[in-house]
Protein backbone atom coordinates (compact mmCIF):
# COMPACT_ATOMS: atom_id res chain seq x y z
CA UNK A 1 0.00 0.00 0.00
CA UNK A 2 1.31 3.45 -0.88
CA UNK A 3 1.09 6.52 1.31
CA UNK A 4 0.02 9.87 -0.12
CA UNK A 5 0.47 13.46 1.01
CA UNK A 6 -2.79 15.31 0.42
CA UNK A 7 -2.24 18.50 2.39
CA UNK A 8 0.70 20.71 3.32
CA UNK A 9 0.92 23.64 5.73
CA UNK A 10 3.57 25.97 7.03
CA UNK A 11 3.68 28.60 9.74
CA UNK A 12 6.33 30.98 8.54
CA UNK A 13 9.79 30.37 9.97
CA UNK A 14 11.72 33.12 11.73
CA UNK A 15 10.33 34.99 14.70
CA UNK A 16 6.66 35.15 15.71
CA UNK A 17 6.94 37.19 18.93
CA UNK A 18 3.20 37.10 19.65
CA UNK A 19 2.81 33.34 19.29
CA UNK A 20 3.94 30.36 21.33
CA UNK A 21 5.65 27.46 19.58
CA UNK A 22 2.48 25.43 20.12
CA UNK A 23 0.35 28.10 18.40
CA UNK A 24 2.72 28.05 15.43
CA UNK A 25 2.26 24.28 15.24
CA UNK A 26 -1.53 24.67 15.34
CA UNK A 27 -1.31 27.34 12.64
CA UNK A 28 0.60 24.90 10.39
CA UNK A 29 -1.97 22.14 10.99
CA UNK A 30 -4.84 24.49 10.13
CA UNK A 31 -3.03 25.48 6.93
CA UNK A 32 -2.48 21.83 5.97
CA UNK A 33 -6.13 20.95 6.69
CA UNK A 34 -7.31 23.89 4.59
CA UNK A 35 -4.97 22.82 1.79
CA UNK A 36 -6.52 19.33 1.88
CA UNK A 37 -10.07 20.63 2.30
CA UNK A 38 -10.44 18.56 5.46
CA UNK A 39 -11.27 19.21 9.11
CA UNK A 40 -9.40 18.28 12.30
CA UNK A 41 -12.22 15.88 13.20
CA UNK A 42 -11.40 13.87 10.06
CA UNK A 43 -7.95 13.02 11.41
CA UNK A 44 -7.57 9.52 12.85
CA UNK A 45 -4.06 9.92 14.24
CA UNK A 46 -1.24 12.40 14.68
CA UNK A 47 2.51 12.26 15.21
CA UNK A 48 4.31 15.39 16.26
CA UNK A 49 7.32 16.78 18.01
CA UNK A 50 9.09 19.82 19.35
CA UNK A 51 12.30 20.49 21.28
CA UNK A 52 11.43 23.68 23.17
CA UNK A 53 7.80 24.30 22.20
CA UNK A 54 6.08 21.82 24.53
CA UNK A 55 4.42 18.42 24.12
CA UNK A 56 2.94 18.11 20.65
CA UNK A 57 -0.15 16.23 21.87
CA UNK A 58 -1.20 19.36 23.78
CA UNK A 59 -2.08 20.77 20.33
CA UNK A 60 -5.51 19.21 20.85
CA UNK A 61 -6.23 22.11 23.20
CA UNK A 62 -6.03 24.39 20.17
CA UNK A 63 -7.42 22.09 17.50
CA UNK A 64 -10.11 20.15 19.33
CA UNK A 65 -10.43 17.25 21.75
CA UNK A 66 -11.53 14.66 19.22
CA UNK A 67 -10.03 11.63 20.94
CA UNK A 68 -7.61 10.77 18.13
CA UNK A 69 -4.41 8.81 18.74
CA UNK A 70 -1.67 11.42 19.20
CA UNK A 71 1.93 10.27 19.73
CA UNK A 72 4.78 12.61 20.62
CA UNK A 73 8.05 12.12 18.76
CA UNK A 74 11.42 13.48 19.88
CA UNK A 75 14.50 12.62 17.82
CA UNK A 76 16.68 15.73 17.77
CA UNK A 77 16.93 17.46 14.39
CA UNK A 78 15.50 14.30 12.81
CA UNK A 79 12.20 14.74 14.72
CA UNK A 80 10.25 15.70 11.58
CA UNK A 81 11.69 12.82 9.58
CA UNK A 82 10.91 10.42 12.41
CA UNK A 83 7.34 11.70 12.75
CA UNK A 84 6.73 11.25 9.05
CA UNK A 85 8.25 7.78 9.20
CA UNK A 86 5.88 6.84 12.02
CA UNK A 87 2.86 8.12 10.06
CA UNK A 88 4.05 6.33 6.94
CA UNK A 89 4.22 2.99 8.75
CA UNK A 90 0.87 3.59 10.49
CA UNK A 91 -0.82 3.89 7.09
CA UNK A 92 1.23 1.18 5.42
CA UNK A 93 0.25 -1.24 8.18
CA UNK A 94 -3.40 -0.67 7.28
CA UNK A 95 -4.34 0.47 10.76
CA UNK A 96 -5.25 4.00 9.71
CA UNK A 97 -6.31 5.80 6.53
CA UNK A 98 -5.57 9.39 7.36
CA UNK A 99 -3.65 11.49 9.84
CA UNK A 100 -1.46 14.48 10.59
CA UNK A 101 2.28 14.92 10.98
CA UNK A 102 3.29 18.14 12.72
CA UNK A 103 6.45 19.78 14.00
CA UNK A 104 7.00 23.16 15.63
CA UNK A 105 9.48 25.00 17.80
CA UNK A 106 10.44 28.26 19.43
CA UNK A 107 14.08 28.56 20.53
CA UNK A 108 15.78 31.35 22.44
CA UNK A 109 18.31 33.42 20.50
CA UNK A 110 21.90 32.27 20.20
CA UNK A 111 23.51 28.86 19.93
CA UNK A 112 21.84 25.77 21.42
CA UNK A 113 23.06 24.79 24.88
CA UNK A 114 22.58 21.04 25.20
CA UNK A 115 22.89 19.53 28.68
CA UNK A 116 25.38 16.64 28.89
CA UNK A 117 23.21 14.40 31.10
CA UNK A 118 20.39 14.35 28.53
CA UNK A 119 22.84 12.84 26.05
CA UNK A 120 24.38 10.25 28.36
CA UNK A 121 27.53 12.31 28.97
CA UNK A 122 29.26 13.58 32.11
CA UNK A 123 28.98 17.24 33.12
CA UNK A 124 32.69 17.99 32.55
CA UNK A 125 32.14 17.66 28.79
CA UNK A 126 29.81 20.66 28.77
CA UNK A 127 31.56 22.49 31.62
CA UNK A 128 34.86 22.63 29.72
CA UNK A 129 33.23 23.94 26.53
CA UNK A 130 33.45 20.89 24.28
CA UNK A 131 29.73 20.31 23.71
CA UNK A 132 28.70 22.82 21.05
CA UNK A 133 27.05 21.81 17.80
CA UNK A 134 28.81 24.69 16.00
CA UNK A 135 32.19 23.26 17.07
CA UNK A 136 31.34 19.80 15.83
CA UNK A 137 30.24 20.96 12.39
CA UNK A 138 33.43 23.02 12.13
CA UNK A 139 35.60 20.07 13.21
CA UNK A 140 33.95 17.73 10.74
CA UNK A 141 34.08 20.27 7.90
CA UNK A 142 37.75 21.08 8.63
CA UNK A 143 38.76 17.43 8.32
CA UNK A 144 36.54 16.87 5.28
CA UNK A 145 38.13 19.82 3.45
CA UNK A 146 41.58 18.40 4.26
CA UNK A 147 40.68 14.88 3.08
CA UNK A 148 38.83 15.85 -0.09
CA UNK A 149 40.42 19.08 -1.28
CA UNK A 150 37.43 21.34 -0.64
CA UNK A 151 38.27 25.05 -0.28
CA UNK A 152 36.54 28.04 1.31
CA UNK A 153 35.18 28.94 -2.13
CA UNK A 154 32.76 26.01 -1.91
CA UNK A 155 31.60 27.01 1.59
CA UNK A 156 30.89 30.54 0.38
CA UNK A 157 29.00 29.36 -2.69
CA UNK A 158 26.64 27.21 -0.59
CA UNK A 159 25.70 30.23 1.54
CA UNK A 160 25.40 32.50 -1.48
CA UNK A 161 22.93 30.05 -3.05
CA UNK A 162 20.97 29.63 0.19
CA UNK A 163 20.39 33.34 0.76
CA UNK A 164 19.67 33.92 -2.91
CA UNK A 165 16.99 31.19 -2.82
CA UNK A 166 15.67 32.65 0.46
CA UNK A 167 15.28 36.04 -1.21
CA UNK A 168 12.76 34.58 -3.70
CA UNK A 169 10.91 32.41 -1.16
CA UNK A 170 8.02 34.34 0.42
CA UNK A 171 7.94 32.08 3.50
CA UNK A 172 11.72 32.24 4.20
CA UNK A 173 13.02 34.01 7.29
CA UNK A 174 16.10 35.53 5.60
CA UNK A 175 14.83 37.40 2.57
CA UNK A 176 18.02 39.25 1.77
CA UNK A 177 20.45 37.88 -0.80
CA UNK A 178 24.09 38.17 0.30
CA UNK A 179 27.03 38.73 -2.00
CA UNK A 180 30.01 36.40 -2.23
CA UNK A 181 32.15 39.13 -0.64
CA UNK A 182 29.74 39.72 2.26
CA UNK A 183 29.82 36.02 3.11
CA UNK A 184 33.59 35.71 2.62
CA UNK A 185 34.28 38.65 4.94
CA UNK A 186 31.71 37.82 7.65
CA UNK A 187 33.03 37.04 11.16
CA UNK A 188 34.81 33.73 11.63
CA UNK A 189 32.67 31.82 14.16
CA UNK A 190 34.33 28.41 14.30
CA UNK A 191 37.12 27.97 11.77
CA UNK A 192 36.49 27.25 8.84
CA UNK A 193 32.84 28.35 9.26
CA UNK A 194 31.85 32.01 9.23
CA UNK A 195 28.76 33.81 10.51
CA UNK A 196 26.82 33.60 7.24
CA UNK A 197 27.67 29.91 6.88
CA UNK A 198 25.63 28.86 9.94
CA UNK A 199 21.88 28.61 10.39
CA UNK A 200 20.34 30.09 13.52
CA UNK A 201 17.92 28.52 16.00
CA UNK A 202 14.52 30.03 15.16
CA UNK A 203 10.75 29.47 15.31
CA UNK A 204 8.14 28.00 13.04
CA UNK A 205 5.75 25.15 12.33
CA UNK A 206 5.07 22.68 9.53
CA UNK A 207 2.39 20.04 9.00
CA UNK A 208 1.33 17.41 6.48
CA UNK A 209 -1.88 15.48 5.96
CA UNK A 210 -1.06 11.90 4.97
CA UNK A 211 -3.51 9.38 3.58
CA UNK A 212 -3.85 5.84 2.23
CA UNK A 213 -2.95 6.33 -1.45
CA UNK A 214 -5.92 4.25 -2.64
CA UNK A 215 -8.24 6.90 -1.18
CA UNK A 216 -6.16 9.99 -1.89
CA UNK A 217 -8.03 11.01 -5.04
CA UNK A 218 -11.26 11.27 -3.04
CA UNK A 219 -9.78 14.26 -1.27
CA UNK A 220 -7.20 15.70 -3.57
CA UNK A 221 -6.68 16.15 -7.32
CA UNK A 222 -2.89 16.27 -7.05
CA UNK A 223 -1.72 13.84 -4.34
CA UNK A 224 2.00 13.14 -3.95
CA UNK A 225 3.37 9.79 -2.86
CA UNK A 226 5.91 8.86 -0.19
CA UNK A 227 7.99 6.22 -1.94
CA UNK A 228 10.43 5.82 0.91
CA UNK A 229 10.92 6.85 4.52
CA UNK A 230 14.04 5.67 6.35
CA UNK A 231 15.59 6.67 9.66
CA UNK A 232 18.99 5.39 10.82
CA UNK A 233 21.31 6.05 13.77
CA UNK A 234 25.10 6.15 13.99
CA UNK A 235 27.48 3.25 13.55
CA UNK A 236 30.59 2.58 15.56
CA UNK A 237 33.22 4.85 14.07
CA UNK A 238 30.99 7.37 12.33
CA UNK A 239 32.10 10.92 13.18
CA UNK A 240 29.20 12.39 15.12
CA UNK A 241 28.29 15.35 17.27
CA UNK A 242 28.66 15.06 21.10
CA UNK A 243 31.49 12.49 20.94
CA UNK A 244 34.25 12.90 23.57
CA UNK A 245 36.22 10.39 21.49
CA UNK A 246 36.14 8.83 18.04
CA UNK A 247 37.35 5.48 16.76
CA UNK A 248 40.56 5.52 14.70
CA UNK A 249 38.74 4.33 11.59
CA UNK A 250 35.90 6.49 10.30
CA UNK A 251 32.78 4.54 9.36
CA UNK A 252 29.91 5.62 7.09
CA UNK A 253 27.62 8.27 8.56
CA UNK A 254 24.00 7.33 9.37
CA UNK A 255 23.07 9.51 6.41
CA UNK A 256 24.79 7.04 4.08
CA UNK A 257 22.81 4.08 5.37
CA UNK A 258 19.50 5.96 5.56
CA UNK A 259 19.98 7.19 2.01
CA UNK A 260 20.84 3.75 0.64
CA UNK A 261 17.83 2.24 2.41
CA UNK A 262 15.52 4.91 1.00
CA UNK A 263 16.76 4.51 -2.58
CA UNK A 264 16.36 0.75 -2.27
CA UNK A 265 12.80 1.12 -0.97
CA UNK A 266 11.89 3.51 -3.77
CA UNK A 267 13.62 1.43 -6.41
CA UNK A 268 15.37 4.46 -7.91
CA UNK A 269 18.82 6.04 -7.73
CA UNK A 270 20.22 9.53 -7.07
CA UNK A 271 20.26 10.24 -10.82
CA UNK A 272 16.45 10.00 -10.88
CA UNK A 273 15.93 12.81 -8.35
CA UNK A 274 14.76 16.22 -9.67
CA UNK A 275 14.68 18.34 -6.50
CA UNK A 276 16.70 17.85 -3.32
CA UNK A 277 16.58 19.02 0.30
CA UNK A 278 19.70 18.37 2.40
CA UNK A 279 20.28 19.28 6.04
CA UNK A 280 22.34 22.47 5.87
CA UNK A 281 22.97 23.29 9.49
CA UNK A 282 25.95 25.08 7.99
CA UNK A 283 27.43 25.27 4.52
CA UNK A 284 30.02 22.59 5.33
CA UNK A 285 27.38 20.00 6.13
CA UNK A 286 25.48 20.67 2.91
CA UNK A 287 28.69 19.89 1.04
CA UNK A 288 29.29 16.67 2.99
CA UNK A 289 25.64 15.65 2.69
CA UNK A 290 25.73 15.99 -1.12
CA UNK A 291 28.15 13.06 -1.20
CA UNK A 292 26.81 11.14 1.80
CA UNK A 293 23.40 11.01 0.09
CA UNK A 294 24.94 9.68 -3.11
CA UNK A 295 24.46 12.76 -5.31
CA UNK A 296 28.19 13.07 -6.06
CA UNK A 297 31.61 11.69 -5.16
CA UNK A 298 33.52 13.03 -2.17
CA UNK A 299 35.54 16.00 -3.39
CA UNK A 300 33.43 16.59 -6.49
CA UNK A 301 31.41 19.28 -4.71
CA UNK A 302 33.96 22.02 -5.32
CA UNK A 303 33.49 21.76 -9.07
CA UNK A 304 29.72 21.22 -8.91
CA UNK A 305 29.26 24.36 -6.82
CA UNK A 306 31.45 26.42 -9.11
CA UNK A 307 29.33 25.25 -12.06
CA UNK A 308 26.10 26.10 -10.23
CA UNK A 309 24.85 22.50 -10.39
CA UNK A 310 22.94 22.82 -7.10
CA UNK A 311 21.24 26.12 -7.98
CA UNK A 312 17.55 26.19 -8.89
CA UNK A 313 18.40 26.12 -12.60
CA UNK A 314 21.20 23.57 -12.12
CA UNK A 315 21.01 19.87 -12.83
CA UNK A 316 20.61 18.91 -9.13
CA UNK A 317 18.82 21.75 -7.30
CA UNK A 318 19.50 21.64 -3.54
CA UNK A 319 17.50 23.55 -0.90
CA UNK A 320 15.36 25.55 -3.30
CA UNK A 321 13.74 27.48 -0.43
CA UNK A 322 17.08 28.48 1.07
CA UNK A 323 17.25 25.51 3.47
CA UNK A 324 18.07 25.93 7.14
CA UNK A 325 20.52 28.72 6.31
CA UNK A 326 17.75 31.02 5.05
CA UNK A 327 14.85 29.61 7.07
CA UNK A 328 16.53 29.09 10.42
CA UNK A 329 16.34 25.95 12.48
CA UNK A 330 13.26 25.34 14.61
CA UNK A 331 14.35 21.79 15.40
CA UNK A 332 10.91 20.15 15.59
CA UNK A 333 9.69 21.76 12.35
CA UNK A 334 12.71 21.75 10.02
CA UNK A 335 12.40 18.21 8.68
CA UNK A 336 8.78 18.83 7.71
CA UNK A 337 9.63 22.19 6.10
CA UNK A 338 11.85 20.21 3.77
CA UNK A 339 8.94 17.95 2.79
CA UNK A 340 6.68 20.98 2.40
CA UNK A 341 9.13 22.58 -0.04
CA UNK A 342 9.57 19.41 -2.08
CA UNK A 343 5.77 19.10 -2.33
CA UNK A 344 5.49 22.74 -3.46
CA UNK A 345 8.06 22.01 -6.18
CA UNK A 346 6.40 18.76 -7.33
CA UNK A 347 3.05 20.54 -7.52
CA UNK A 348 4.66 23.26 -9.65
CA UNK A 349 3.71 25.96 -7.15
CA UNK A 350 7.22 27.32 -6.50
CA UNK A 351 6.69 30.66 -8.26
CA UNK A 352 9.99 32.50 -8.69
CA UNK A 353 11.91 29.56 -7.24
CA UNK A 354 10.14 26.84 -9.25
CA UNK A 355 12.45 24.19 -10.69
CA UNK A 356 11.82 23.95 -14.45
CA UNK A 357 10.78 20.96 -16.54
CA UNK A 358 8.07 19.59 -14.29
CA UNK A 359 10.05 17.88 -11.50
CA UNK A 360 8.65 14.45 -10.61
CA UNK A 361 10.90 13.08 -7.86
CA UNK A 362 11.84 14.87 -4.64
CA UNK A 363 14.33 13.88 -1.94
CA UNK A 364 14.64 15.11 1.65
CA UNK A 365 17.36 14.49 4.22
CA UNK A 366 17.67 15.53 7.87
CA UNK A 367 20.60 14.97 10.20
CA UNK A 368 20.58 15.54 13.93
CA UNK A 369 22.25 14.93 17.25
CA UNK A 370 23.61 12.59 18.38
CA UNK A 371 24.01 11.01 14.94
CA UNK A 372 20.63 10.30 13.40
CA UNK A 373 19.44 10.71 9.87
CA UNK A 374 16.07 10.61 8.14
CA UNK A 375 15.53 10.38 4.38
CA UNK A 376 12.29 10.60 2.39
CA UNK A 377 11.61 10.17 -1.31
CA UNK A 378 8.44 11.75 -2.65
CA UNK A 379 7.04 11.44 -6.16
CA UNK A 380 4.17 12.67 -8.27
Amino acid at each position, binding site marked *: MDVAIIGIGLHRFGRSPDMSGMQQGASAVRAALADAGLAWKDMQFAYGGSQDGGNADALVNELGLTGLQFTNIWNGCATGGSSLHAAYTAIKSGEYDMGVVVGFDKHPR*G*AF*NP*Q*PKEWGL*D*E*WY*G*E*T*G*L*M*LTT*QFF*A*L*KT*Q*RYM*YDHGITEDALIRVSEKAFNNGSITPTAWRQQALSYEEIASS*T*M*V*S*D*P*LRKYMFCSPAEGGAALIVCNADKAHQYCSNPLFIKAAAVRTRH*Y*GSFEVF*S*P*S*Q*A*MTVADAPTVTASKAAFELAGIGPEDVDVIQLQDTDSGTEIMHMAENGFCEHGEQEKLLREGATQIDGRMPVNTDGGCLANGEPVGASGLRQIYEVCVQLRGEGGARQVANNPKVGYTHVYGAPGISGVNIITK
Partner: protein
Amino acid sequence: MTSQVPLHEGLFTWPATKPQLLGSRCSQCAEAAFPAQPDCRSCGSRDTTIVELGDHGTLWTWTIQTFLPKHPYLSGETADTFRPYGVGYVEMPGGVRVEARLKPNSPDQLKIGMPMQLDIIPFCTDENGDQRMTFAFSAVAEV
Protein backbone atom coordinates in the same frame (compact mmCIF):
# COMPACT_ATOMS: atom_id res chain seq x y z
CA MET B 1 45.53 27.85 50.89
CA THR B 2 44.58 27.31 47.26
CA SER B 3 44.77 23.69 46.21
CA GLN B 4 44.32 22.08 42.82
CA VAL B 5 41.69 19.37 42.25
CA PRO B 6 40.63 17.58 39.06
CA LEU B 7 37.43 18.95 37.50
CA HIS B 8 36.29 15.33 37.16
CA GLU B 9 37.83 12.13 38.54
CA GLY B 10 39.12 9.41 36.25
CA LEU B 11 39.99 11.41 33.11
CA PHE B 12 43.77 11.52 33.65
CA THR B 13 46.49 10.43 36.07
CA TRP B 14 47.27 13.44 38.24
CA PRO B 15 49.23 14.65 40.05
CA ALA B 16 52.03 12.85 38.26
CA THR B 17 55.35 13.82 36.71
CA LYS B 18 54.06 12.69 33.32
CA PRO B 19 50.24 12.76 33.47
CA GLN B 20 48.43 10.35 31.12
CA LEU B 21 44.91 10.41 29.71
CA LEU B 22 42.82 7.50 30.98
CA GLY B 23 40.41 5.52 28.84
CA SER B 24 39.08 2.00 28.55
CA ARG B 25 39.94 -0.87 26.27
CA CYS B 26 37.67 -3.75 25.35
CA SER B 27 39.13 -7.19 26.10
CA GLN B 28 37.01 -8.71 23.32
CA CYS B 29 37.59 -6.39 20.33
CA ALA B 30 40.53 -4.24 21.59
CA GLU B 31 38.79 -0.94 20.73
CA ALA B 32 39.53 1.98 23.06
CA ALA B 33 37.25 4.74 24.36
CA PHE B 34 37.62 8.05 26.16
CA PRO B 35 36.46 8.65 28.83
CA ALA B 36 36.63 5.12 30.27
CA GLN B 37 33.31 3.31 30.11
CA PRO B 38 32.17 -0.11 31.31
CA ASP B 39 30.49 -1.04 28.00
CA CYS B 40 32.25 -1.30 24.67
CA ARG B 41 30.66 0.94 21.99
CA SER B 42 32.04 -1.26 19.26
CA CYS B 43 30.93 -4.77 20.23
CA GLY B 44 28.67 -4.28 23.25
CA SER B 45 30.88 -6.37 25.54
CA ARG B 46 31.10 -5.36 29.22
CA ASP B 47 34.59 -6.78 29.48
CA THR B 48 36.58 -3.53 29.49
CA THR B 49 39.53 -2.35 31.56
CA ILE B 50 40.89 1.12 32.33
CA VAL B 51 44.10 1.89 30.43
CA GLU B 52 46.49 4.79 29.92
CA LEU B 53 45.98 6.31 26.45
CA GLY B 54 49.22 8.30 26.47
CA ASP B 55 50.36 11.90 26.96
CA HIS B 56 50.91 12.99 23.37
CA GLY B 57 49.34 12.59 19.96
CA THR B 58 48.70 13.99 16.50
CA LEU B 59 46.13 16.66 15.66
CA TRP B 60 43.38 15.07 13.52
CA THR B 61 41.08 18.09 13.13
CA TRP B 62 40.66 21.45 14.85
CA THR B 63 38.54 24.58 15.21
CA ILE B 64 38.47 27.67 17.39
CA GLN B 65 35.70 28.53 19.84
CA THR B 66 35.30 32.28 19.42
CA PHE B 67 32.23 33.01 21.56
CA LEU B 68 31.43 32.35 25.22
CA PRO B 69 29.48 29.07 25.49
CA LYS B 70 26.22 29.14 27.46
CA HIS B 71 25.47 27.07 30.59
CA PRO B 72 26.86 24.57 31.63
CA TYR B 73 30.17 26.21 30.62
CA LEU B 74 32.06 26.71 33.86
CA SER B 75 35.14 28.81 33.14
CA GLY B 76 33.80 31.77 35.11
CA GLU B 77 34.55 34.13 32.21
CA THR B 78 32.13 36.79 30.99
CA ALA B 79 31.55 37.85 27.39
CA ASP B 80 34.07 40.64 28.05
CA THR B 81 36.80 38.51 29.61
CA PHE B 82 36.31 35.46 27.34
CA ARG B 83 39.44 34.22 25.57
CA PRO B 84 38.93 32.07 22.45
CA TYR B 85 40.24 28.53 22.77
CA GLY B 86 41.15 25.82 20.31
CA VAL B 87 39.20 22.53 20.14
CA GLY B 88 40.39 19.45 18.32
CA TYR B 89 40.54 15.69 18.11
CA VAL B 90 43.96 14.28 18.92
CA GLU B 91 44.99 10.79 17.81
CA MET B 92 46.41 9.04 20.86
CA PRO B 93 48.95 6.22 20.93
CA GLY B 94 46.29 4.26 22.85
CA GLY B 95 44.29 3.97 19.63
CA VAL B 96 41.48 6.50 19.91
CA ARG B 97 40.88 10.13 18.85
CA VAL B 98 40.15 12.31 21.88
CA GLU B 99 38.31 15.63 21.78
CA ALA B 100 40.09 18.26 23.84
CA ARG B 101 40.72 21.92 24.41
CA LEU B 102 43.81 23.15 22.61
CA LYS B 103 46.08 25.86 23.98
CA PRO B 104 46.86 27.29 20.52
CA ASN B 105 43.90 29.52 19.66
CA SER B 106 44.61 31.07 16.28
CA PRO B 107 44.49 29.41 12.86
CA ASP B 108 48.15 30.08 12.10
CA GLN B 109 49.13 27.98 15.14
CA LEU B 110 47.13 24.92 14.13
CA LYS B 111 47.64 22.37 11.38
CA ILE B 112 46.22 18.89 10.86
CA GLY B 113 48.95 16.34 11.54
CA MET B 114 50.96 18.46 13.99
CA PRO B 115 52.32 16.75 17.14
CA MET B 116 50.53 17.66 20.38
CA GLN B 117 51.43 17.27 24.04
CA LEU B 118 49.04 16.67 26.95
CA ASP B 119 48.87 19.36 29.66
CA ILE B 120 46.88 19.38 32.86
CA ILE B 121 45.83 23.01 33.31
CA PRO B 122 43.83 25.08 35.81
CA PHE B 123 40.41 25.68 34.22
CA CYS B 124 38.42 27.61 36.83
CA THR B 125 38.27 28.39 40.53
CA ASP B 126 35.44 26.87 42.57
CA GLU B 127 33.53 28.30 45.57
CA ASN B 128 36.19 26.97 48.00
CA GLY B 129 38.89 28.85 46.16
CA ASP B 130 40.30 25.61 44.75
CA GLN B 131 41.60 25.47 41.20
CA ARG B 132 39.73 22.88 39.11
CA MET B 133 42.10 21.13 36.72
CA THR B 134 41.29 19.81 33.26
CA PHE B 135 43.20 18.33 30.31
CA ALA B 136 44.29 20.20 27.19
CA PHE B 137 46.84 19.83 24.44
CA SER B 138 49.58 22.23 23.42
CA ALA B 139 51.84 22.25 20.40
CA VAL B 140 55.06 20.32 20.86
CA ALA B 141 57.85 22.89 21.16
CA GLU B 142 60.31 22.68 18.29
CA VAL B 143 63.73 21.44 19.37
